[in-house]
């Protein structure tokens, strides 16, 4: 009798544990895999934007419908995101962290000669290269202009909309 009770208890514990495990497995997370992404109140690009999401932001998937996921952000904001703007794996950051580390001690070696890469213009290393390689002023200006060339994120968004691209697919 006591043995039977123990067995039933064990089975119950097992059932609860399995239930908990499957609960964990059901909570699917995805990451924003786009420079910018909009979280909307509904699953069309015409719905109101409830939040602007950043690259790499983690989202919990609540529901999947067609090309859209209903998600919840870490801050608890709920909304819909175009599925193509997400990925199941976290964008890698370890490489950049290592790279930063590499730079930090390379700089220490000769901090006084470190070039500063400004928002505009060729930096010191490439300018010196241009001198040594005999690159014309016209070609320097071309790369200089390219470096400074700016198109606002909103203009890209308008371009996507006009072409029926991304979440604006017709």
């Amino acid at each position: 009798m006591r043995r039977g009770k123990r067995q039933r208890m064990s089975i119950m514990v097992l059932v609860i544990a399995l239930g908990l495990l499957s609960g964990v497995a059901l909570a699917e997370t995805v990451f924003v895999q786009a420079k910018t992404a909009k979280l909307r109140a509904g699953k069309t690009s015409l719905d109101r934007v409830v939040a602007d999401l950043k690259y790499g932001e983690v989202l919990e998937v609540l529901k999947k419908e067609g090309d859209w996921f209903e998600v919840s952000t870490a801050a608890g904001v709920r909304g819909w995101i175009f599925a193509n703007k997400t990925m199941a794996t976290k964008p890698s950051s370890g490489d950049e962290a290592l790279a930063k580390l590499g730079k930090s001690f390379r700089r220490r070696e000769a901090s006084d000669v470190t070039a500063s890469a400004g928002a505009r213009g060729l930096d010191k290393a490439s300018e010196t290269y241009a001198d040594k390689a005999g690159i014309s002023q016209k070609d320097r200006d071309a790369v200089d202009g390219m470096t400074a060339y700016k198109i606002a994120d909103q203009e890209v968004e308008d371009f996507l909309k006009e072409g029926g691209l991304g979440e604006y697919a017709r």
Partner: protein
Amino acid sequence: MQRAAEDAARRSGDERLAKAIRGGGTLISGLLPIGYEEESSIGQAISLQVVARYGGVSDQSDLTRYVNLVGRAVAGSCDRPEIPYRFAVLNHDSINAFAAPAGYIFVTRGLLKQIQNEAELAAVLGHEIAHVSQKHILQVIQRSKQLAGITEAGLAYTNQNPEAFKGLIDGAVKKLLDEGLDQEKEIEADQLGDVFAARVGYDPTAYVGLLNRLKALKGDDRAFFKTHPNFSTRIAAVQRVMQTEGLKPNGVLLGDRFARLGKQL
């Protein structure tokens, strides 16, 4: 140097890396990945050579803007969307496109003339974006650095040793413009580029159409496009990725918009 690296690793909370540096000695600094600031210097220097050798860049602002908009649309959904991407049209009749590190991307007038719709342009730019996102050229530089026994290629080093920096850049330019990257890197760029374009909503079959036309125009001999695998291999690789990634041929082509904005040659 070794001590500084070890301390830096420890301060960043990575005890394992600190130990690795102690074990690996100064060589480790040359093996660390290249950071964005250095990548940017390398990208600019390579771009100077690309522009110098391919007739300079177009000053047609509408065309430049259009190519940048298509490129930015694709780059926004690539695997490395957080860095800036800039695009320029080269005043050259050859059929080609190039990518330099840090997001400097070029397409020739000759290639634009062969393109028939925006989806094809998106895949071409996607191919170049993939070279940047996968750091293909940086890997070449990293390897040549190791072969040359150079343990540092940081900005401090490049400014102290402009001759060595020039050597690294000239080697990378030779590989990029004359010899070509490894075949598997080109195939990977073809496949990823088509995936990136399809993610934004462009028809993934468009790229196959362009490659087929170029094959008919130029033949399937690698002698012409010596920097890339032959067209049949590339077409088969793109078709394979469409199947494995489940890319559906229901995206947009935008032939009209391309005819209006991309044909201002």
